[in-house]
Structure formats: C-alpha cells, structure tokens
C-alpha cells in the first residue's frame, strides 16, 4: 500500500537546499519523493492546497521535558507529543531528568516505545551523562545509543565535576553524539530564584548572577577544545555567554547552542509581582542580555531555537515564588512567539527561523530531518504566516498550562503537521 501526499503551491522554505519559492512537494510512503514546480501528482495522491502557506521541513525541538516516567501529572509522552504536533513540531528530544532518570538502555527503550505508540511527533530519547544524574560515574552511553539515544545530558542539573565532563566529551566521540550541558555553577546559584539585579534586590529574592552561567559555559568550551568533543550548550541567556560561544566557534571548537523563545522575548521584569509563571532556570535576564541572545541567534552563534518545554501542574506554580518550580511550557507557543516578536521585528527572517527550528536542530543532534531533499523523511510543517491568534492555555494539548504568555496576541501559527507523510495534526 502506498500513501501519496501532494502539497500544492506552498512557499517552500528549506534552508538545507537554499530553497525559498512557490513549489509543490510530493511525499510517497513517508519520504520526500520530489519537489518542484507544478508537479502533476499521481491520481491517487492526497492533494493539499498550501497556497498562502509556508511549507517547511518539520520543526525539531531538541529540548523538551515529557515528564514520563515519574511525573505523569505534569505531562506524559502521549500528551507531550500531542502538544508538539500542535506546535508544528515533527520531532522532539526528550530530556532524561525523569523519575527514574533515563540512564540505561532499558529506560531509553521505554521512551522509544512510548513515543512510537503515541503516533504523533517522533520522540528521540536523550540519555543521562551520569548514572542517576548523580554527577559521579558515566552512564552506559554506548548501550543507550544502541537503544536509540541521540545525545546525552544531565539536564536539570549541570555536570559540576569538570573531570567527569571531560570523560563524557571524550567517551561520547565514539558514538558521534553531542554532550548537552545545562550550564550553571551551583556554587553561585543554588538556593537562588531569579536574575540577580535591582529587581531581585527590591523583591527580596536571592539572585543568580550571569556569572553563574558564564563560568560554566567557558569551562565547557575549554573542555570541548581540550577533548575535541562536541558540546551542546543549553538555553543560553547572557551576553557574555553568547560572546564566548561566538569566539569558540571562530576558534573551531565543536559547539552548538540553544536560544529559548522566552530568553529571546522576556526580561526579568516579567517576574514583578512574584509571577511564578516567569520563574525559570536560567532566569529571565536584562534587556541587554535579550539583545545579545537575539544577535547570537541571528549570526548563528546560537544554532538552535529550543523551547525547554517544562510542564508543571497548576498547583505547583500556585505558590510563593521561592517555593514554585522552574520552567514553562513552550511547544505550543514557540512558532507564534518567534514569528511575532523575532521575525516580524526583523531580528531574523523566516528562512533563518526555519534553519534555527529545523535544520539547525537536526545538525546539532545528528538527526534525520531538517531537510526536504528527495529521499528525506516526509516530515513537514505547514505554517500560516498570517493567522492572528491569542494564547489561551486552556486550549493547550499539553497537560500543563504554565506559560507567561497567556493572552498574548500573536500573528503566525502552525497550520498542519506531517510526520512520515501522515498528517498528525491540522488546525
């Protein structure tokens, strides 16, 4: 049985091939069969009119927390991938800070199996760097890669032991996977709740200085340079951090890095009034830092937009600021936020946006996808650049509602999400 889908007359934006023109795209049996002008599709093809819409290689989020196993009250793999496809994502990389953590091949296999069962976005497991994420001994990285892990990280925690980080960067090279790190020096940040500044001083909240993140970024860059390993730095939020990555790339260090939508559009002022939905780690910083993260995204110092989708149950956020957990859900708002606040404002163009949300992530984590070249996976995101909508957390497919963007009016939204040639979501 063959399934044929013909996407007619969309604006195909595929930075991997330098394409940005009105084209037709034919998917057959879950892969890209052809791309070109006025393709006369097979008679049995499902024809989808995409005029006025953007046709992009499927968006990939390399940083999501699906919370399963262990915190299914916040999110499950099934609900997380539904949120993903509703946000235009065809693939997500699941962070391993679950309970128990994903630190052995059986746990990786569980994520793979549940992801397949969910029949929506592809789920790529990320394994732990260290056993139990304890930061002491290397997890069985090779076995986890054999079971389907695409990267390793102790995300949620930084790897505080520089010796262990060196070993991870060396050992992982045998498998061609990146080592992702959450850069944070806990000695400078533990027990602290927001950016350290006049705002934290006024609110009486203990602050995390930029240096807490930057010390760790610089250490990781030095270790990547020392070992020749591939480091992926998560959710960069400071000006100096962006500069350090830019300089390291110029020296030839193998580094990729993320910008999160919230660090691109919000400053620490969002915390005023002790708003727990604006509590995240790394914290929202100053306008100067936001400008630097934007510049880093534009010039490619930051390769990837990743949401750090971090669902929390509503009553966990309904508490005093210091008692609330860090994080926000991001999968279902990323496209709208980026198109409205970043693309419309001219920080990057739509081509660069798609590079940072599809091609860049695929390159950073060595994933199939991120391209619509013939023979590639038939993962496609169709975006409506003109749709105006309002963020309503009650409409989220995610189990959780923790977003600082409630009520934001946005222009631009996912329209249809196709995974392996099959439409898994449409507006």
């Amino acid at each position, binding site marked *: 049985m063959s399934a044929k889908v013909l996407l007619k007359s969309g604006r195909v934006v595929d930075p991997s091939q330098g394409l940005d023109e009105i084209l037709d795209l034919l998917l057959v049996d879950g892969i890209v069969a052809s791309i070109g002008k006025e393709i006369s599709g097979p008679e049995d093809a499902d024809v989808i009119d995409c005029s006025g819409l953007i046709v992009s290689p499927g968006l990939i989020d390399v940083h999501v927390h699906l919370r399963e196993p262990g915190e299914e009250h916040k999110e499950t793999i099934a609900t997380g991938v539904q949120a993903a496809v509703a946000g235009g994502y065809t693939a997500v990389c699941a962070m391993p800070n679950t309970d128990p953590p994903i630190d052995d091949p059986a746990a990786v296999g569980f994520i793979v199996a549940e992801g397949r069962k969910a029949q929506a976005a592809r789920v790529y497991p990320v394994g732990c760097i260290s056993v139990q994420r304890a930061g002491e001994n290397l997890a069985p990285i090779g076995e986890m890669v054999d079971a389907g892990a695409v990267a390793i990280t102790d995300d949620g925690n930084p790897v505080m032991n520089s010796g262990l980080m060196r070993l991870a960067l060396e050992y992982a090279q045998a498998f061609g996977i990146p080592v992702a790190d959450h850069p944070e020096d806990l000695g400078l940040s533990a027990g602290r709740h927001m950016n350290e500044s006049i705002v934290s001083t*006024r*609110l*009486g909240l203990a602050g995390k200085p930029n240096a807490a993140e930057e010390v760790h970024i610089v250490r990781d860059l030095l270790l990547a340079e020392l070992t020749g390993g591939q480091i992926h730095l998560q959710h960069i939020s400071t000006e100096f951090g962006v500069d350090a990555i830019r300089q390291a790339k110029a020296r030839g260090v193998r580094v990729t890095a993320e910008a999160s939508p919230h660090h691109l559009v919000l400053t620490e002022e969002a915390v005023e009034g*002790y708003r727990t939905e604006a509590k995240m780690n790394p914290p929202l910083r100053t306008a100067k830092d936001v400008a630097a993260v934007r510049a880093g995204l534009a010039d490619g110092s930051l390769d990837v937009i990743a949401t750090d989708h971090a669902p929390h149950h509503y*009553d966990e956020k309904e508490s*005093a600021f210091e008692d609330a957990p860090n994080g926000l859900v991001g999968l279902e708002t990323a496209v709208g936020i980026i198109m409205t606040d970043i693309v419309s404002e001219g920080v990057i163009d739509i081509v660069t946006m798609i590079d940072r949300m599809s091609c860049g992530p695929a390159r950073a984590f060595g994933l199939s996808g991120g391209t619509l070249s013939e023979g590639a996976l038939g993962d496609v995101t169709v975006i409506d650049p003109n749709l105006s909508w309002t963020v309503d957390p009650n409409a989220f497919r995610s189990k959780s509602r923790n977003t600082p963007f409630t009520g934001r009016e946005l222009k631009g939204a996912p329209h249809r999400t196709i995974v392996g040639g099959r439409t898994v979501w449409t507006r």
Partner: protein
Amino acid sequence: MTAAMASSPVPALGKDLVGLESLSQEQILMILDTAEPFKEISERRIKKVPVLRGKTIVNLFFEASTRTRISFEFAEKRLSADTVNISAAGSSVSKGETLVDTARNLEAMRIDMVVMRHGSSGAAKFLADRIPSNVINAGDGRHEHPTQGLLDLLTIRDHCDRVQDLKVCLVGDILHSRVARSNIYGLLKLGAEVAVCAPKTLLPSAIGDLGVKVFKRIEEAIEWGDVLNVLRLQLERMEEGYVPSLREYNRIWGVTARKLEFAPQDLLILHPGPMNRGVEIDSDVADGPHSVILNQVTNGVAVRMAVLYLLSGGQPGSAEAAKKEAGA
C-alpha cells in the same frame, strides 16, 4: 466638595499593607500621624477602646516571632478585635497545607483581617491577591516588614522631630533583611539620606541602585550618621559562610562603646530585635544613652493600631475622636 477634598487629600491605604515600597510619602505620614493619638491608649489603666469591635483578625505566623506577634496582638486587643493566633508549629497550617489552601480556608471562615508572617518573599502579596480580607504583612522572607519600618520611622521622628534630611545608616545583614528594605523605602520617601554598612557578602549586589550610600566600615558610618539602625546577625549566616566568625563580626562591624567614643551625644541607635548582645551590638550600647530600642517596642503597638484602624476603614483625621468616643 472643596471641604471634602481638603479633609481627605491622601488616598486611602487600599485593602492591604504589603510593603512601604508602594506607599506615597503622604500615606506613610498619614499612618505615623494616626499612630500619635493611639499611643496614649497603652498608657491608660484600662487599655481598651471599641474601635475594632466585632472584627475578626487572624495572626498567621509561619515563622517564629515573639515581639511582632505579641505587638500585633496587643494592638488588636486594645482596639477590641477578636483575634486568633495560628503558628506553623503544631497546627495543620504547617508543612503540608499549601499557602493557597490556607488562604481559601481563612476566606471560608469570613474573617476580616489577616496578619501574616511567612518565610517566602512575596507571600503577603500572594495571600492579598487571593482573599477579600485585609492582609497586613508582618514580614515576608527577605522582602518587607512594613510595620517595623513604620515604627522605626515613628521612633526616629519622636526623637529628632523630623525624618527629612536626617542621615540614617542601616548596619548589618542587609541581604537577608526585610527590615532593611522597609526602612530604606520609608526613609527615602520621607526625605532622609540613607546608607548601609555591612561586609559586602551581606549586601544585595544592586543595593546602590536603591538610592543608598554604602559604607565599608562601621567607623565611617558612625562618623556620618545621625541614626544607626543595627540589624540582627542571624547566627546561621555564619554557618553559611557569609562571615568568618561572630567574634570577627563583633570586632569589625559590631556597634561597641569604644567605636562610639567620638560619636555625637545625640546619635540615635535603633535595633529591631531580637538582639545578639556581643555580636552586632554590645550591651553597654544597647542599654546606653544613645539607645531607643525599647521606645521602638512601645511605638510598635501604636503604629500597628494605626494600621489596623486605617485598613478597617477608619478616617485618618478621626482617630482621636474614635478613641474618645471609645473612652466615654
């Protein structure tokens, strides 16, 4: 209409007293002026007036407190309110019940006011946003302790006849101190010059941006100031490594008689309590001629009566009348 505008030119306090940062100079002065007539009630043989008769007030203390809780309780009782004390230890309102559930339960019991102390910054606002009752912040984390700030202002005004243009230095653990923030906001709004003096480990990084001077050494602060407000050094700060030892802290930042040798006679010394004698303040200073520490405690009751009266809808100009009517 003109008369009405003239009689109440100051906007009311609103529903809650969460901090001094959001109050205007006029509102702060209104509270201090309202406290004046209430001072006398505590000097009577029968210390009770029916200003808050029929009002129900809950004193909700998630953190241990002696002085503040008792001061509020006296203020409430002397105004004839019905009061209930809830402390975290030994009640269902300890670990386990969330703050939002506590708020809902209180709301369901139809109380009029809550006086709350909580270990988390912002907890008072959190509660105030969720219940229709008046909320008075009796200290939230390291954020604010507005009634302490007000009673410090009242004590300074009592002794110096003004706050405007006075030089006031807060000495000690500014980083963890809600008293420091309320003092800084209140003093600046009333036109004082404000400084802080502490080891840099106990100063918030952006303290200068609040509009205060920073002194590195206590000797400089003593030479500069008209008033020193000496803050408690919590003993756990030493365990956390903010200062090397209590002995060193006393020698270098402690307010001692020897350091006050050349201080002007009218230098005023305040301490919000509870004191660590021999750490941030020596006994001969605490008990000496510069000290107004017990006046602060007395003023605390009057200031809290004023706040309770104003938040319950009392008119600032009518405090004296309300009191007299009560006495009749």
